[in-house]
């Protein structure tokens, strides 16, 4: 799912200056200037992008911030889903890992 190797300590970042983000009804349409690809982000992936654009986060630190952003509980949105969403965004080049600790 990810574009490369990662660990639980990997921190991730998003550079939204490289994107055009267009909220549209319940989704966000994201045009990635680097790849030329257009992505449709749902509320979870859009919130994930927003949190990682504010500052570098690993899975553990990003998780509560994302839950707060989407106003959902861990019961509704398990950590595994947030992790998978970050890896999806990484695969698409919308977020990138900035540091990997052994």
């Amino acid at each position, binding site marked *: 799912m990810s574009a490369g190797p990662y660990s639980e300590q990997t921190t991730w970042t998003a550079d939204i200056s490289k994107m*055009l983000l*267009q909220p*549209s*009804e*319940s*989704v966000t*349409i994201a*045009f990635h*200037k680097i790849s*030329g*690809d*257009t992505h*449709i982000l749902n509320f979870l992936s859009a919130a994930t992008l927003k949190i990682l654009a504010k500052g570098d986060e690993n899975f553990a630190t990003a998780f509560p911030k994302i839950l707060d952003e989407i106003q959902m509980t861990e019961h509704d949105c398990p950590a595994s889903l947030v992790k998978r969403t970050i890896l999806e965004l990484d695969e698409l080049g919308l977020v990138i890992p900035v540091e990997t600790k052994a």
Partner: protein
Amino acid sequence: MKNEFQRLGDYHREDIDVALRSGSLEMELGPFSMRLEGREADIVDFLFDAYRDAPVRLKLGDVTDVAINVRPPNIIRKYIRRQVIADPGFIVPAVPLPPYLSPLAFEMGLNLAIALKCCRFTTFHSAVVGNERGAILISAHSGGGKSTLASALMVEGYRLFSDEFGLLDMETGMLHPYPRPVSLKEKSIDIVREFTGEKWLTKTFGGTPKGDIAYRRVRPSDIQLSKTPMAAKLILFPVFQEDTPPSVRELSKSETIMKLIPSSTNYHLLGTASFEALIKMVAGAQTFEITYGNTQDSLEITRDLAAKAGL
């Protein structure tokens, strides 16, 4: 004699033939000037039949947007079991066809040239018609009924922008006309003949890669207005399902974009400007998926939706 554009049908056949053979025939439609070359008499017949109202001149201007040469695929096929292909100046998997189908090669070649090499507009595989208030973009795969619906809407008074391309201006977000003959396949030929009348159809070409094909001619008024773009007011995705009762589903903006991007031949190449123009076009239009079982149903639905969209 001045090298000015004039109606193709007003030229002598010999003049068109000579210019076509020498590759100096230039046609101008909408935003494109096209350099045309070919040696087949069938193409000359076709030009006088399907393009008789199009402006052409016999000597080239400085620049043309598109160049099409309908020629044999190789020296052998020039003489033995003769075939032709349309060469747009770059490598495409052209279909070798017998000479009597050279008009078809000509049309397919022009389509490929615009689809794959036009970078001035974001191109969508769709039909577009319009009136003085706005345009209707009809997006469907081959066989989805866009040509038939476009032909029906022409009878309703809409002008033809294009049967094959939505040309989206990346600065204005408006659609530009490129009125070429409407390609009709198989059963749609008789359907369109019924409501358009025989005089607007070319002869039918049989045995083509897509079955029987005939063309609905472009009207002089479509050509006269071919430099007047309009904003899309209505975007339709027709789905033909035989014997299905008609139904309409309004689409969200994001779903519309999801459907339009894969139908573009150059969106990915054109970057930010293309994205912004697409967002602009979709924001200004109402979009629907219409499911229908016959042309009358699709026409009635479109009439209704067009009225609601202010067309």
